[in-house]
């Protein structure tokens, strides 16, 4: 992208204020990128103007992409193309990240080299959904970037009404609490649904996030249409000697562990910790406090929850329980089967820009369960309904 220097250089009085202070500065990052691309200088100029005027200078997106894909590129144009020609187009490319966001230095350098040749040299590591974000290029550079990315083994993520790149926590790669192989599941799902990722065919977006335990480090319960949260069915693994070591080292087992248990299912007599595992809700507090002494049980798997989303359109939703426990070994097949039924129903009844959680709100969870062939179980609710307006079905009436 060898072009003339833009008009932004040296005129960023407000942005320069953001190079001060101990936290790493994004303005410094843009200035670094400006050493290898003319985009940086014009981006600074445009952004400085936004800071002065307190408004965005980006226009409503345009439809751009790579051949054969409907998603993965966010078209973006500025409203001042004459003043800042190098950011007249400033399209974003979303790239499927490797599960768990693991890299080698060489893999990162490969990505950097591609982006130096074809774009602004600015990235997000990573975007909110988890993708590698290449921030800012021109329409003509999309295909060449895509070609080099795929030759290097990378591919685009999703955007618009399609499946978005699934993401997961670090899982069994570096965490003793992971109740299933989050990275393998995330990778398998991403690979299995490449078509759904790249070619929008849904009523709206669909996100899957895989957390290995109820600590939910990828916030799946808040932001994924299908949340996969690791859990266990049997007893917490307990090492009494290690509990005693924590106590000897000064941990107040009664106050710091037992008193915070949401179901008060733990007793500490000063020597031995007794857990009534049948009353445990698997919240993780005791395990978090004593990682050397307590661990999730051995019968591992995950809880599947459905329907989280941010406020747009009808209000924010947290996911709610769909299947309380799926054994780890059955997760991939169960999710595949479940998704095909969910997507069939959503595809048929979902309105334009209606997330699956909102469809369930509109049509009712019981109707949704009927449609996907799941039996109701008490783990799905915090309490049974408290209103008597029951939609009894005619088929149950005596004729």
């Amino acid at each position, binding site marked *: 992208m060898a072009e003339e220097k833009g008009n932004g250089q040296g005129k960023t009085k*407000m942005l320069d204020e*953001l190079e001060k*202070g*101990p936290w*790493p*500065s994004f303005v*410094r990052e*843009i200035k*670094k990128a400006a*050493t290898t691309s003319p985009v*940086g200088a014009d981006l600074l100029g445009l952004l400085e103007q936004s*800071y002065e005027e*307190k*408004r965005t*200078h*980006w*226009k*409503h*997106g345009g439809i751009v992409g790579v051949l*054969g894909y409907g998603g993965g590129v966010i078209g973006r144009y500025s409203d001042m193309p004459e003043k800042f020609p190098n950011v007249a187009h400033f399209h974003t490319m979303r790239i499927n990240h*490797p599960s*768990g966001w*693991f*890299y*080698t230095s*060489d893999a*990162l*350098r490969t990505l*950097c080299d591609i*982006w130096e040749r074809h774009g602004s040299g600015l*990235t*997000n590591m*990573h975007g*909110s959904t*988890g993708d590698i974000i290449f921030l800012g290029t021109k329409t003509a550079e999309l295909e060449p970037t895509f*070609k080099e990315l*795929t030759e290097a083994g990378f*591919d685009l993520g999703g955007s618009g009404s399609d499946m978005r790149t699934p*993401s997961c926590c670090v899982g069994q790669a*570096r*965490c*003793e609490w992971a109740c299933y192989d989050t990275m393998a599941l995330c990778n398998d799902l991403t690979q299995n649904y490449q*078509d759904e990722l790249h070619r929008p065919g849904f009523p709206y977006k669909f996100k899957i996030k895989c957390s290995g335990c*109820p*600590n*939910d480090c990828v*916030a*799946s*319960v*808040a932001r994924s249409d299908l949340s996969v949260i690791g859990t266990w069915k049997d007893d917490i693994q307990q090492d009494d000697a290690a509990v005693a070591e924590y106590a000897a080292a000064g941990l107040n087992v009664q106050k710091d562990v037992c008193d915070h248990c949401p179901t008060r299912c733990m007793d500490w007599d000063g020597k031995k910790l007794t857990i009534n595992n049948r009353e445990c809700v698997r*919240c*993780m507090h005791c395990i*978090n406090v004593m990682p*050397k002494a307590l661990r999730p049980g051995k019968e591992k798997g995950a809880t599947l929850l459905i329907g989280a*989303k*941010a*406020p*747009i*359109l009808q*209000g924010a939703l947290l996911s709610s329980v769909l299947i309380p426990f799926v054994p780890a070994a059955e997760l991939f097949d169960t999710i595949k089967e479940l998704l095909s039924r969910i997507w069939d129903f959503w595809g048929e009844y979902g309105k334009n820009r209606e997330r699956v959680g909102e469809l369930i709100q509109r049509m009712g969870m019981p109707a949704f369960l009927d449609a996907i062939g799941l039996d109701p179980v008490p783990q799905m609710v915090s309490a049974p309904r408290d209103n008597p307006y029951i939609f009894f079905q005619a088929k149950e009436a005596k004729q």
Partner: protein
Amino acid sequence: MGTPAATPPKRITDIGPPHFEKFLHPVIKKNYGQWKFHETLAPGVLCHVSETGERIYTVRAASPRLLSIQTIRLFADLADKYARGFLRFTSRNNVEFLLDDPAKIEPLKQELRAAGFPVGGTNNAISNIVHTQGWIHCHSSATDASGIVKCVMDALCDQFTEEKLPAKLRIALACCLNMCGAVHCSDIAILGIHRRPPKIQHDSLKRVCEIPTLISSCPTGAIRTATVDGKQSVEVIEEQCMFCGNCYTVCPAMPLSDPENDGLSIWVGGKVSNARSAPKFSKLAIPFLPNNPPRWPEVVDAVVNIVNVYAQNAKKFERMGEWIERVGWPKFFELTGIEFTRYHIDDFKNAGLTFARSAHIRF
């Protein structure tokens, strides 16, 4: 590619991401699924111990998320020097170097700090602020994202490099209520808001938008057809508009940015973890703060105040929302000095769920 081809080379598509396995440190590959426990050696430094006795050390550093290729190459060089070339990023945009030699922890930390990347973000610290694009890239933003994050974390950097809070504290920022990244379950959420209805561009509306789609996009039914100066267009019933911007998403002729009326709101007490209490939404603390670039002092002061009041009053292990639920919302407003207004009382769908439905009154 060197050889003359009669047909163009096959276009590679739908290959997905590279398999993670080839990016795993040998110690991680060997001990995958066999981790036994972990301990924190210092803020930002973790040691995971395997059933085999092998150890992997993690050094976590802050990043502004918006990274130049120059900084990524710096991280790659540091990974080569200290971590056999292996590194990862976290769900909150921190960078983590994976070391098998504990002797290399201190030199790496020093080099990271010298390069301007604080080490920390673990356990009872404030980790990195997850955030959206703001004026860097977004058309619907009510504010910038990276700038506010920078200012807030400049003020709270010590809370990143130390673990001295009652529990972990997670801050998130979204530059409009589309909430890319879903900030609505954070201990503190900073949310850009619009406060004026869309400024309808009647001249272009019919040309660039489908009017039925536009009308049905409004969650409160505030948009109806209208003829303006002889042109087919729409009008917005102002008192029904809650400034969500969904109409602008489906129709570019409905921009609602307004420099003097756009600004920030602050929400508190959300969490996603199941530890102790169930996941919960953040609740409104401050309905409006002005957009005041480049340093947003009002927002920084508000967040720092909430963090300080929480740090001084919450009990060990209590997340923000758990503390507030224990002491009650009146106490939260009293201790923080934040004014309670009509905007704090919900009037959208299911509003009654947040009303006080008992005589358990706190004064």
